[in-house]
């Protein structure tokens, strides 16, 4: 253990003298100097002038005791179920085209203000991603399209005009195309079918920026079913991922995280955990959590998978094809042995979009007997339905002028398609093009007309993420602008009187009603399903929420993906292997450009949400930008430092980007995030980064998400100040992270607890200990379960009205997030080269530790921060006058200072400060003013509300009454919060076990946040380093 070194950036690892000097400063820069530099022209005279005026003005103001007259406007007709100040929760579904979550929406006085997980869902119950949490801000986005634009000016115009056009096209035998993102809604799929019946010549094409088209086609070839299997990471003991960031962005990260962590927390009684090996090109969130992580060139992925296939085929006695490539140290051979030993309990996944590669992955999982165990094609998943080839064909059709009308809904190909120029030219040849959008996009600008549709929080709908699992979407606010639902428009065009609400009900009351026997009345079934938000075939609706109930497999008719009217690829596996061997041979010396999705930004559809822009990337800790993550080797060859600028040239791509020298990136790889560089977007997303989509290679009609043979060169003399949040705050050789391997687990924890006991013996208190007559709030965070996804950061921001500070302020180190996730790299300290090439990663969520001997409390001259009788470290904003002594004295550096007035729109364009935007604010939390200190409050507003609910009902307080925003929505369930004085609470049983430690316990500040030792499941012989 002692030889292991933890660091946050290269300069720290290499003991850079300049860095060490800066480290002593504790804060990023001298804040006062920075303040005077704000405009570059402030002077001492300005300061005195302002100072004098403020003094005079405040004296005059104080003398006026006249308080302005306020008014109270009651409802004229109060809705029966709305009570001012009492929140209502409505079950709904979040799906942004790539992430699915069943959610509850907190609505205050008719305004959605917070999205949280729906515990009734067996798919995502217990967690909500950062993107899900942030989507509530999207609703109030000022950039939303408020009325029809383009060819139509009013709704009446649009509908009559459209139906006339469609009719004439249909009668002439023309072609109509509806292009959408994945449609999860079974009723909408049925409706699109009805539309196609009404207008002959209509075809529905699914387009996704990040499709799983390779997996779909591979299963079609192997099983005859074009479907995405449902994965069960919880049932796998050995998990192998090839460039599949399943904890961060791949297919259904919240669901997979929930499954993954079930086998990741060893205890004294059950010292076991699953083993996870990640082979990847870029340091992804999933790779950061893996037990073994190996760099791999994306352009050789197929060859490595082929090699793994062959190793396993030898054991299984199946055909061996040859032509694969081994990883260093014969790693794949060893991996094959591990996998073979865990037959039926292993899972191999690949993020590749090449159907040929995916066929090999299918073959591997088949040989390992994993089908029906850890992945299932009989109960498929519908989360990805797009097939790249079909969209390619559509573009070709449009180019030849065969398409007469095209609709775009829930997709933005003009931005995310690999060949944007080709698409733009093709679209110009379509006489009638309409985009249905919530806000204008690159695609809608190219269309002849754009019609505004409802945000999901204003819509009705349903979703079917997996076979047998359904959830409902219900509106939580009436439409803010003159918008309509896409489905309502379709119904109107089909000429139905019915609205979509009625259509949806009808679908549920007939089709789905028939799949259950629990209710005799369709009305009752509908009401109960709407209340619960989810309906799972085979699981009773009336029973209380129990996420652990296993759903019986349901045999359903599997026809999810629009059929291609073509025979499936029937080439033999041997032919596939030959193609893969040729395609992925890889040339040494060629540089790969690897495109990846960031956890916060995804495919870029939510680029205008400032919360997501400001959310630090889990790995690079950078905000508000994309950049070139270059490997250590390339950095060395080109003499690059973080903050330098490089030019990347490839086919269809030529951009300059700032550099981050990123440990873990494969030696001959540069990685760039997609989702940035939006051109038609609101002010938060405008001019942020560069669009990397056009760089992606298209091979055999599949978007592969990487390019090989790119040229990378340093732009001399140019630097770019990236807004990175973790440049300061290093461990400085303190035991902040505690980590061990599964083999040493029992021994290590015994030693650790002994060490802690000794510490405790020597604890002497100068101050009397606080009395805890009632509650004693505390938190425990499991470093083994925490994947570092950052959902808590955005959930906290949404709950606590935390302002966005913008790129410039982050550069000054003034971020305001109450919660941060520290990322530390670690490796053998003796080998700095290896350490920078492929280190291990640990994440540690860090927020106010609510110390019982809080160092901040002793130094506040005005008692603005004091201890509560329930163990909270309280911050009274109205008392604070901003000395910042507390921040200085805090050993965890978790206090945040409001440097500027973030509520003033002219200073900060990003915050929700206009009349519509302010509706997102949580009315139970003060909007802090300039010049006060703030920090995590343990969501005291939720504690107060929970206690009051228990008191009003006259009952004991339950754990479920008092969850903080972060603990409630943590997909991994890594954060447990509660009252340690209550023997029945979850935390009291969990707070002090063999893995527990406290950060900086030796300071004896008695923090209230316990951490659990990180454990890695390493094979003893250390295969990774060989």
């Amino acid at each position: 253990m002692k030889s292991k070194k933890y660091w946050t950036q290269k300069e720290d690892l290499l003991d850079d003298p300049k860095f060490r000097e800066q480290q002593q400063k504790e804060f990023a820069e001298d804040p006062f100097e920075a303040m005077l530099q704000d405009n570059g022209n402030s002077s001492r005279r300005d300061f005195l002038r302002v100072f004098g005026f403020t003094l005079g003005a405040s004296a005059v103001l104080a003398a006026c005791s006249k308080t302005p007259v306020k008014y109270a406007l009651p409802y004229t007709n109060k809705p029966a179920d709305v009570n001012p100040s009492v929140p209502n929760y409505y079950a709904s579904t979040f799906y942004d085209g790539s992430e699915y979550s069943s959610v509850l929406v907190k609505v205050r006085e008719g305004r959605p203000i917070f999205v949280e997980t729906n515990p009734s869902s067996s798919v995502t119950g217990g967690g909500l991603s950062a993107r899900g949490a942030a989507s509530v801000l999207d609703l109030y986005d000022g950039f939303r399209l408020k009325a029809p634009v383009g060819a139509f000016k009013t709704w009446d115009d649009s509908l009559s005009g459209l139906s006339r056009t469609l009719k004439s096209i249909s009668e002439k035998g023309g072609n109509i195309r509806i292009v959408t993102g994945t449609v999860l809604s079974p009723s909408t799929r049925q409706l699109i079918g009805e539309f196609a019946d009404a207008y002959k010549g209509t075809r529905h094409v699914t387009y996704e920026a990040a499709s799983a088209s390779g997996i779909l086609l591979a299963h079609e070839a192997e099983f005859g079913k074009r479907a995405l299997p449902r994965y069960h990471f919880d049932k796998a003991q050995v998990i192998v991922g090839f460039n599949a960031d399943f904890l961060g962005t791949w297919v259904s990260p919240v669901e997979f995280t929930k499954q993954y962590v079930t086998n990741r927390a060893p205890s004294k009684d059950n010292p076991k955990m699953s083993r996870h090996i990640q082979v990847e090109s870029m340091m992804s969130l999933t790779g950061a959590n893996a037990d073994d992580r190996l760099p791999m060139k994306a352009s050789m992925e197929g060859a490595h998978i082929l090699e793994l296939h062959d190793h396993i085929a030898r054991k299984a006695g199946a055909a061996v094809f040859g032509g694969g490539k081994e990883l260093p140290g014969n790693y794949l051979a060893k991996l094959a042995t591990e996998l073979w030993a865990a037959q039926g309990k292993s899972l191999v996944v690949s993020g590749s979009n090449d159907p040929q590669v995916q066929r090999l992955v299918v073959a591997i999982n088949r040989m390992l007997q994993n089908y029906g165990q850890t992945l299932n094609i009989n109960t498929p998943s519908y989360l990805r339905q797009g097939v790249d080839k079909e969209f390619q064909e559509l573009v070709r059709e449009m180019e030849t002028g065969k398409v007469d009308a095209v609709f775009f809904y829930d997709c933005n190909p003009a931005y995310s398609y690999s060949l944007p120029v080709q698409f733009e030219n093709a679209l110009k040849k379509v006489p009638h093009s309409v985009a249905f959008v919530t806000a204008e996009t690159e695609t809608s600008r190219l269309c002849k007309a754009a019609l505004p549709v409802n945000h999901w929080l204003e819509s009705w709908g349903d979703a079917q993420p997996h076979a047998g699992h359904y959830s409902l979407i219900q509106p939580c606010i009436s439409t803010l602008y003159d918008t309509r639902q896409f489905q309502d428009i379709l119904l109107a065009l089909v000429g139905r009187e019915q609205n979509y609400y009625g259509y949806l009900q009808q679908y549920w009351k007939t089709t789905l009603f028939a799949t259950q026997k629990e209710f005799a009345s369709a009305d009752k079934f509908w009401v109960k399903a709407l209340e619960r938000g989810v309906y799972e075939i085979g699981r009773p609706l009336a029973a209380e929420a129990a996420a652990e109930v296993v759903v019986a497999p349901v045999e359903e008719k599997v026809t999810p993906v629009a059929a291609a009217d073509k025979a499936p690829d029937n080439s033999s596996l041997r032919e596939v292997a030959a193609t893969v061997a040729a395609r992925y041979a890889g040339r040494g010396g060629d540089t790969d450009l690897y495109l990846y999705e960031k956890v916060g930004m995804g495919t870029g559809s939510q680029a205008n949400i400032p919360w997501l822009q400001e959310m630090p990337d889990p790995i690079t800790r950078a905000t508000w930008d994309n950049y070139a993550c270059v490997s250590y080797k390339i950095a060395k060859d080109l003499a690059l430092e973080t903050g330098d600028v490089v030019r990347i040239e490839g086919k269809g791509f030529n951009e300059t980007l700032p550099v981050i020298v990123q440990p873990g990136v494969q030696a001959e790889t540069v990685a760039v995030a997609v989702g940035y560089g939006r051109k038609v977007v609101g002010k938060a997303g405008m001019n942020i980064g560069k669009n990397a989509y056009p760089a992606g290679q298209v091979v055999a009609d599949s978007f592969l998400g990487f390019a090989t043979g790119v040229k990378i060169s340093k732009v001399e003399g140019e630097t770019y100040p990236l807004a990175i949040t973790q440049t300061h705050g290093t461990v400085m050789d303190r035991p902040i992270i505690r980590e061990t391997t599964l083999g040493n687990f029992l021994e290590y924890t015994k030693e650790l607890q002994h060490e802690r006991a000794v510490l405790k013996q020597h604890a002497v208190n100068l101050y009397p200990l606080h009395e805890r007559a009632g509650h004693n709030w505390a938190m425990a965070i499991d470093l083994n379960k925490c994947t570092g996804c950052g959902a808590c950061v955005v959930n906290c921001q949404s709950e606590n009205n935390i302002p966005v500070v913008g790129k410039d302020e982050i550069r000054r180190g003034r971020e305001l997030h109450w919660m941060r996730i520290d990322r530390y790299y670690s490796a053998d300290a003796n080998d700095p080269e290896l350490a920078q090439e492929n280190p291990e990663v640990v994440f540690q969520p860090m927020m106010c530790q609510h110390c019982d001997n809080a160092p901040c409390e002793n130094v506040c001259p005005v008692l603005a921060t004091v201890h509560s009788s329930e163990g909270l470290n309280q911050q009274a904003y109205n008392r604070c006058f901003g000395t910042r002594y507390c921040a200085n004295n805090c050993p965890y550096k978790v206090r945040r200072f409001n440097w500027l007035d973030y509520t003033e729109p002219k200073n900060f364009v990003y915050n929700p400060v206009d009349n519509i935007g302010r509706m997102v604010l949580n009315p139970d939390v003060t909007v802090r003013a300039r010049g006060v200190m703030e920090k995590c409050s343990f969501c005291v507003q939720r504690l107060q509300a929970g206690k009051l609910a228990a008191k009003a009902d006259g009952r004991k307080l339950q754990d479920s009454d008092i969850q903080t925003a972060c603990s409630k929505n943590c997909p991994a369930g890594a954060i447990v919060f509660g009252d340690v004085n209550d023997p029945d609470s979850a935390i009291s049983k969990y707070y002090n076990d063999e893995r527990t430690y406290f950060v900086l316990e030796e300071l004896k500040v008695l923090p209230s946040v316990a951490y659990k030792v990180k454990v890695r499941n390493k094979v003893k012989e250390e295969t990774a380093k060989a």
Partner: protein
Amino acid sequence: MLSAFPVLRAQEGEAIFKQNCYTCHRFDRDLTGPNLTGVIDRWGGDEAEMLAFIKNPKGYADGGQKHSARVHELFGKYKQWMTPHAFLGDDKIKAVITYIKDYKAPAAAADGAPATEGAAAEKGAGISEDALLYGLIMLVGLLVVVSLVLIIVIAAVLSAIRAKERGDKFTYATLKDSAVNIFKSKFVLTILALVIIGGVLDKGYDFAAHIGFRDGYQPVQPIAFSHKLHAGQYKINCEYCHTGVSKGKSATIPSTNICMNCHSTIKEGPQHGPNEIAKVVGAHEKGEAIEWVRIHNLPDLVYFSHQQHVKVAGLECQTCHGPIEEMEEVYQYSRLTMAWCVNCHRERKIDLNSNPYYHSVFKQVREDWNAGKIDSVSVARLGGLDCAKCHY
């Protein structure tokens, strides 16, 4: 159903009655609805029919039931259907019927009295304080006059002595000189200056310390609504209109549709005739919100919950809002400063046996209290002075 829920007792029936029926029904007169004395006989003692009617009055009337014709006759008289009360559930409605059946007219003027007692007592204390203040001012005035007289006497004596020493004549002029000299002496000037500065500082401090105090604030409201009439004379339960008071943070200003429950039939008031009520009806018809002037304004940085104080602690509205049932136009009764809040939290005692919530949370404190080791448990003792109780 009946086996699952115990039959509610008559006292509970009374509470439900006060909450839901009392606004329109009395036992001594017709109001928005008919006088209830003798109502059981009118229904021929058939409780099942009454239950069905109360749950859905119009449905009952139109359903061709036993009493449908009579109910239609009543509608002709009152021009309004009773609100459906199915939301109460059968048990609660049955409890109300039992209460009506067992109702006996009380001795005159018994009900409602206790609510005003405390407020009256507090007001009495206020008057005696005023008297004390006036007394003090008079005393100070008297002292000033006496000291002035004394100074003149001393001056006279001194000048007389000096005149005698010098052998001069004691004249009025020398008396005046000597008096002026005394007033010009540094000692007296210093004293005077100190008194004046002290006075100004005292007044200034007093003024500054009261900035933002709004007790007594009584703005003119857009509609001359009288609490004295509604709460005092008609004894309408506060919660009938202020529906949020036990549900959440805000007591809520009643929505206009609640006014219309009665004022769709009552169109004339005793003081202003039809004028003021017409404003309410007009606002409702036009769907406009009435712009009431807000009287009780806590700063945004304070979180105050009515539910905590009314439902959990069981405080009377009058404790903070004063004798509301005597107010023609409402004014702010309490000071609503932090000192005022904190003072109450220090003094108010909690009955730890009252709520099962306390049983588990404050187990030890409760045991000590029940064993007599602690005299009383104040709000402060249970954390009522924590900043984050109100500020977050």
